[in-house]
């Protein structure tokens, strides 16, 4: 699901140019990646118990 965010037009133009060179499929993907990287600094990680439970049953792992 997507939502619209208003960004500075010049900034988006700059991001557009870089995103293509960097190998992103779109400027949206580039901006999302930057936001995700920043969010990772602030958001809490899943607990080990939660992660282990989610991975349970994956055939390749014991």
């Amino acid at each position, binding site marked *: 699901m997507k939502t619209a965010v208003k960004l500075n037009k010049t900034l988006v133009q700059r991001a557009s140019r870089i995103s293509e060179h960097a190998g*992103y*499929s779109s400027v949206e993907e580039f901006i999302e*990646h930057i936001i995700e990287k920043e969010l990772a600094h602030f958001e809490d*990680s899943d607990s080990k118990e*939660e992660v282990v439970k989610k991975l349970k049953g*994956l*055939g390749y792992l014991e």
Partner: protein
Amino acid sequence: MKRRDILLSLCAVALLLYGARHSHGNLQLAYIGPGAGFAFLGSFLTLLTSLVLSVVSLLAWPFRMLWLLVRSKQGYRKARVKKLIFLGLDGFDPGLAERFMAEGKLPNLSRLKEQGSYTKLRTTFPSLSPVAWSTFATGVNPAKHNIFDFLNRDLKTYVPELASSKVRPPHRILKLGKWRIPLSRPSVEMRRKSEPFWKILGRHSIGCTVLRLPISFPPDEFNGRQLSAMSTPDLRGTQGSFSHFSTHVETGHVEGGSRYPLRRAADCLEGDLEGPENAFVEGSGAMHIPFRILHAEDPERASLELQGESYPLRPGEYTPWVRLRFHGGVGVSVHGIARFLLTQTVPEVSLYCTPIQIDPESPALPISQPAYYAIYLSKLLGTYATLGMAEDTWALNEGAIDDDAFLQQAELIKCERESMFLNALQHTRRGVVACVFDTTDRVQHMFYRRLDAGDGRVIEALYRDMDRLVGETTKYVDDHTALFVLSDHGFCSFKRGVNLNSWLHQNGYLALLDGARESGDYFEGIDWSRTRAYTFGLGGMYLNLKGREAKGTVDPKDAAALRKELIAKLTNLRDEETGKVGIRNVYASGALYQGPYLSAAPDFIVGYAAGYRTSWEAAVGKVTARVFEDNKKAWSGDHCVDPLLVPGVLFSNRKVQAEDPGIEDMAPTALDLFGIEAPAWMEGKSVFRFA
């Protein structure tokens, strides 16, 4: 109108708008998994919203049809084919295929080879399905689509997590006493990046039906149809947890499942089926469904009674899918499906239950695009497995089911898939149909031991059956159709496990706390302040890099030298016990990949020799006393080796002109066949050279 009536009307409109905004294709979505919460709307509201939307949709129908007609004509204007079929056979090995073709056992594939093309298909580094199918979809290397393994790591905690998707609980929850009412929907995040070719084709109004192609949970939002596959969880939020009930076991957990007691009552056996956690009522734990087994000792009369329904339990025969409704409170329920199998009747009684899967007719999480597509398929063809890796390999590893029961289960799942695939072919006059069959992968994983022991009957029957499927598929192929039968990787034996964490520990690159000789799972007991490298997952090895990992020790300026040192020491690493080479090559990922997600990649891709793989313990970040050890599980075949050893196959009804095609070439080929230029970020090239 009275004032009260006006207020009620306003409230109704507000609720309607809220429903329209928050309902997902009229489906009630629930977060399933640890710390879960259920998001749901009242059925009346959903019905009312549906009614209004139906009326609007009906009025707009002629205009939409006209618009679609114009658009689709434009979309196919430069097309070189009317129809494109991708039949994916996960893990179909070129060595075995060539052998069986030479023996005349695969007539349909041999015909494709003679009249069209056959070649090996380069796979990805590492040669893993999530990585390779993501490259198939996007036409890019892993550093551009962000899937490097089944697992990725949390750089703050070092705890591995599922690489392909993340389910998060609703972020707004109303607390009323012990009740927890979600005010927002759970979110399911797709971590595969870049753009699959079906989205690009969809924008050109070229219809695509994409069935069970790995790494498709949550499904892509695009102009087409898709059914999710690998990484779709079960109803408990795991990757597949079976339940094993018996009169002679106590409650306990085993790998991939749980054991529960069957209680002897006056005239029956009683048990409780554990479902997902009830996050709607705080502290209430998991939801359960009680059941009874009647006449367990009598094969003619044995039956399972559950939620007011009775199901015959025939020896050695699975029940049909049983619909399960877990009640979380007044008006709150979560729907699942499972099959049961009576595995033992004397002297003790045992009942196996498959992982409880998301009910496609009432999906607790999004599993299709559009949302109603999963329901449509279920209503049309009958219900079907929805779990990402539906064949229960752990139940066989743990002895909850035997070889025959596993094969029967795999066959049932394959038949469901085949019905969907053939149905899509029947109804596709033009556009793309892509479907992946996992049976080939799962059966080879579990039965390579028999091939190694000189009994190739199971594997041969599997390859013959896939050849029959190819024959069925070719009935839908004409001169205007391009057909590809392909696999993401090949297969080989898995006899010995390699624990690189143990090797790193023994060679001074990884340290344990308090001088211990072994660690726990998921790096429990690792002294990160003295650790320079570590491994988990199936294909990679990582440096503990300063500025990247939370407790990194390796200065980035020293990383290149350390990489070189480790590659030199690990290349051609010998298994002292057998005298054979266990690791053929170690590849620096910086030399393999290029793209914006490179920093998430492992620093090395380890190329194990045939017969070797990362050990079960190393895959979950554990240090053990031994580096090499025997693999004693039924899971006896694998492909997590040097990718140069396990290419896939590529058959086509057309002449493939590329000399060394790779799986990254499939997406640009699909675009090329419809006359659409591949975008600049796509790396693969069309396998055809059109003038």
